[in-house]
């Protein structure tokens, strides 16, 4: 089963949430941001070029113009490869664990996996972020030494930063699976 919902992030940008239910105990949530728009790309390029031409008229050195070309090219490559995340996926499997994948605009993917034994809970928390107070979804990890303690908090959807309504949607589904997992792990 698969469906797609539309939400917005904390700055008002559009986000698409795809939910794939493979089985009652295995679900995948995929948040995709809009791709790099031609408009912002043009705006950045133009402003860099204007600045370069301004400098060029001042000191009349053509090195500046070639430097501007390199700056734009390298900047764009770096941005696409290291900064711009197009899609963030949260795959939760009852008996195995939680896998978080973020795919960059260049196609690079980075994946983290947390096995179910380490997961204590999934919660929505509040944080102060850049002059804003936002909600975020995070995974609490068990402390191996102390059974009731928390060793680490892993935030989910870190770059997309969806709003509360989207987080609640994901949270509910995750909680269903966690509850199912707890029920099966204690019953045998």
């Amino acid at each position, binding site marked *: 089963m698969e469906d797609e919902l539309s939400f917005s992030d904390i700055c008002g940008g559009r986000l698409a949430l795809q939910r794939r239910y493979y089985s009652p105990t295995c679900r995948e949530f995929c948040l995709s941001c809009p791709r790099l728009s031609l408009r912002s790309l043009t705006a950045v390029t133009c402003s860099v070029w204007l600045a370069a031409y301004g400098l060029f008229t001042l000191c009349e050195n053509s090195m500046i113009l070639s430097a501007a070309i390199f700056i734009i090219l390298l900047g764009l490559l770096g941005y696409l490869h290291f900064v711009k995340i197009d899609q963030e996926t949260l795959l939760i499997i009852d008996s195995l664990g939680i896998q978080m994948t973020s795919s960059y605009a260049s196609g690079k993917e980075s994946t983290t996996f947390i096995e179910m034994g380490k997961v204590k809970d999934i919660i929505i928390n*509040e*944080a*102060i972020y850049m*002059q*804003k*107070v936002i909600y975020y979804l995070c995974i609490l990890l068990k402390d191996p030494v102390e059974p009731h303690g928390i060793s680490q908090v892993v935030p989910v959807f870190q770059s997309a930063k969806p*709003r*509360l309504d989207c987080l609640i949607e994901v949270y509910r589904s995750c909680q269903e699976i966690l509850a199912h997992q707890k029920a099966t792990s204690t019953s045998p």
Partner: protein
Amino acid sequence: MAARGKDPDPPPPAALTCASPAECSLSSTQSHTVCMVSDFFYPNMGGVESHIYQLSQCLIERGHKIIIVTHAYGNRKGVRYLTNGLKVYYLPLKVMYNQSTATTLFHSLPLLRYIFVREKVTIIHSHSSFSAMAHDALFHGKTMGLQTVFTDHSLFGFADVSSVLTNKLLTVSLCDTNHIICVSYTSKENTVLRATLNPEIVSVIPNAVDPTDFTPDPFQRHDDVVTIIVVSRLVYRKGTDLLSGIIPKLCLKYPDLNFIIGGEGPKRIILEEVRERYQLHDRVHLLGALEHKNVRNVLVQGHIFLNTSLTEAFCMAILEAASCGLQVVSTRVGGIPEVLPESLIILCEPSVKSLCEGLEKAISQLKSGTLLPPADIHNIVKTFYTWRNVAERTEKVYDRVSREAVLSMDKRLDRLISHCGPVTGCIFALLAVFNFLFLVFLQWMIPDSLIDVAVDASGPQSTWGRQCSYSKQRDQNSSEPSKTR
């Protein structure tokens, strides 16, 4: 206290009493969303901190939604929850001096606006005139068109340069605030004069003590000797110099007299000198700094409590001592005469001679057995100042304020220019305009519709322990008015 004679009208209690019982019951059903702002909150310890905490708890109990905004203390930043869903925002703002944040009047607007919008705050209640953040919040609240209330916790002078400056700033900050609360009539007089306010928008709501924390225990004290307790910071304002004059005089006269002195401060050295010179090591005990939870254990060891303050808005220490069943001897300064009835306190002039006479009177009463027993004093005091009563009276201020209109921008500018002098008024009117433009810019950058409304932890839509607390809250709400009225 030259000002006392000049004040023509007796303290008008109009702000605190309802016109009719019908209005009372109508207004108490209305629920407010209040944001308490102050630089001073737990984990910092002090009078303002506990005032905010206790008041918030009692207001939550009465069904209001309360949030607290303060600055980050060390590693404690972000959003925290305290008992009963009291939500505290520890904002990462720079601390300048004495736990007070720096103020530029603008830099805190984005965060405070975000919080006010997401929590749907209707009333901003700032505490303490030393707190820059409290004044910032008042300024931003007025720009955003919210109702504002301010509580003043301290007395100031008029003469020296620093108080002239702070008084000017207070004038600017309070001239368009909806309502001001003071902790005693003396403090009200002081604030009205300092900030040139209309006395009708100033209410007096005293502090309170938790009577269950300060219970008498007569078995802790030794009845073969007389013990005098002093608990205060050892600084000039608290009259430590007077104390150093009293100790040798009385110790010579009464061989069975002991002093226990709790507190720390720069004047401690004077007391140590006195102890050294008159060889009083076994009779004068200096305990050093006390934690608030240990104060009661010290108080119950004594018979007489001595307070030598030179200035005081509302003395919590004598109230705590009286609640522990001690006879109180105090100087007649500031708001102290208002705190306790004549039968429970011996008031003296702030001089060594007068205080000695007062103490001798208390000692002779104690020896002749005419003092009230501690349990009786406790039972009398316990009815005077309760946090529930404070919350009830604060609620009436909120009700009154919520019916008032907030000054529009042009009226506010008029008020600033006409009220605060030509130069200061114009400067701050200009700053108010800048603040308004900044707010418009922020509203364009992040429209209110983009801000997630926070999930309520207290108040009518509370999600905090929903199953049990709802029925409990109802019970308390219905039973409480009969108890406190």
